[in-house]
């Protein structure tokens, strides 16, 4: 173990190794942040429709969740990156016309976003179904439409309940970005492997990656814990423990 390696220059590259890893970290965080937005929006919509009284919407939502949850993430990456442009000519034309880096980023965000959305949808559904039926009925009794009942009665409580599992999903998402190495996105794990390959200092490279991944996952955990405290409803779940 010699931390001096991080100050050594990358052969024929730009700057020392620590900067290479930092550049990778930047990609990791960008992909995770964008994918989280996609996952949160899409996951919420799908989670909500699975609890409505429209049968076809429920089936559609269930189908989505089963499809994306049951295919290994690395296979999904391969499908989005190689197969989709291969079989859909307009996508192919678009891919060839843009910077390959852009397509790697788009693929990673779409792939991780849709995958995590399936998992979030499950959490959102569970959160809504954990509320007593009385809440929904109370909303309807007040003359609120189904949409309004969700917006003003059900979702504000459901989201508070599922903050802990959402935290896990966020941390999972950050760690799952490492799979983007398989399509050549130069994120943290890709850079770690590259550093190992070129310097053979696997111990230092993967040691650094471990610390960084653990650090950002821990930081996001703390942020979500803070959010949980701030958003807590007095007397209800998660409040004043």
């Amino acid at each position, binding site marked *: 173990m010699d931390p001096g390696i991080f100050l050594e220059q990358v052969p*024929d590259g730009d700057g020392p190794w620590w900067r290479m890893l930092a550049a990778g970290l930047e990609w990791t965080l960008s992909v995770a942040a964008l994918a989280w937005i996609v996952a949160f929006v899409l996951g919420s919509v799908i989670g909500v429709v699975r609890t409505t009284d429209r049968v076809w919407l429920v089936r559609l939502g269930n189908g989505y969740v089963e499809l994306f949850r049951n295919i290994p993430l690395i296979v999904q990456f391969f499908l989005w990156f*190689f197969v989709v442009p291969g079989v859909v000519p307009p996508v192919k034309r678009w891919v*060839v016309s843009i*910077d390959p*880096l852009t397509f790697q980023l788009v693929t990673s965000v779409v792939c991780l976003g849709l995958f995590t959305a399936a998992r979030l949808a499950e959490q959102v559904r569970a959160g809504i179904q954990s509320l007593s039926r009385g809440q929904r009925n109370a909303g309807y009794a007040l003359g609120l439409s189904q949409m309004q009942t969700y917006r003003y009665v059900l979702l504000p409580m459901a989201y508070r309940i599922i903050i802990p599992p959402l935290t896990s999903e966020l941390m999972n998402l950050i760690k799952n970005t490492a799979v983007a190495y398989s399509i*050549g996105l130069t994120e943290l794990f890709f850079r770690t*492997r*590259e550093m190992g*390959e070129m310097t*053979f200092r696997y111990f230092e490279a993967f040691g650094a990656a471990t610390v960084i991944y653990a650090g950002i996952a821990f930081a996001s955990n703390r942020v979500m814990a803070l959010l949980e405290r701030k958003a807590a409803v007095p007397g209800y779940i998660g409040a004043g423990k």
Partner: protein
Amino acid sequence: MIKTTRIVLSAIACAMLAAPAAAQQLTGTLKKIKETGSITIGYRESSIPFSYLDDRQQPVGYAMDLCMKIVGAIRSELKMPNLKVQLQPVTSSNRIPLMQNGTIDLECGSTTNSVERQKQVSFGPTYFVINVTAAVKKSSGINSLADLNGKTISTTSGTTSVPLIKKYEKTRNVEVKEIYGKDHAESFLLVADDRAAAFVMDDILLAGQIANSRNPSAYRILPESLRQEPYSMMLRKDDPQFKALVDRTIGGVMKSGEINGIFAKWFTSPIPPKGINMNFPMTPAIREAFSNPNDRGV
């Protein structure tokens, strides 16, 4: 008195001549092989024709044939006719760690013998010499590496091609966009799909990907070279006994001319699984490596 000494001396001499390997204490890899009764060979799944899976999912290839010569030598020298050969697939990223941690004892693939790698592992005699260059589609109109300026190129992550391209870009004022495949098949797929203009890799591996493609005549390999690199089998570092056995065995195969037949079998004849011919005649650099077996790295 003199007579006794002579008898003792000749007895010692006889013992040494009769069983050179058995007489000395086994160390390192050979000791491990003797104790476990097995040797683990690391192979590549798609390094055609060095080491790859055939239609029965068995690893075959030029490097595998040479490694089996080593296995044969171990069987006879260690008197282990029942030596078990275990096969472990490796990738360009995990081959060195797996060698270091003892998972594999011998790697038979397409590994460049570099001075940098020699700090971590050891190599047998050079059995092939490659040029790092690019494969392009004939229809692309690209005739030299300089024509790649402004284009997207693919390469396989974790290979020596990556720093070579970066160096070429800097010295020649050429700017390319790099896109990395996880393995050679994926990198080639990017060119086949017109997602990248060229695949920069070792010429023989490019020839392998082209030979296996749906339309081999659509591709060509540029005649330029970014660098020459020797290929060799990888062994653990600081294991003189096993290295001596490997050098002796492979050196013998080269000196005796047996190597010519093995070379022709894999590089100029139809090979499994599809009966494709690599059409890769022996280059002067390779001939030189065979006549003077050596383990010099680049």
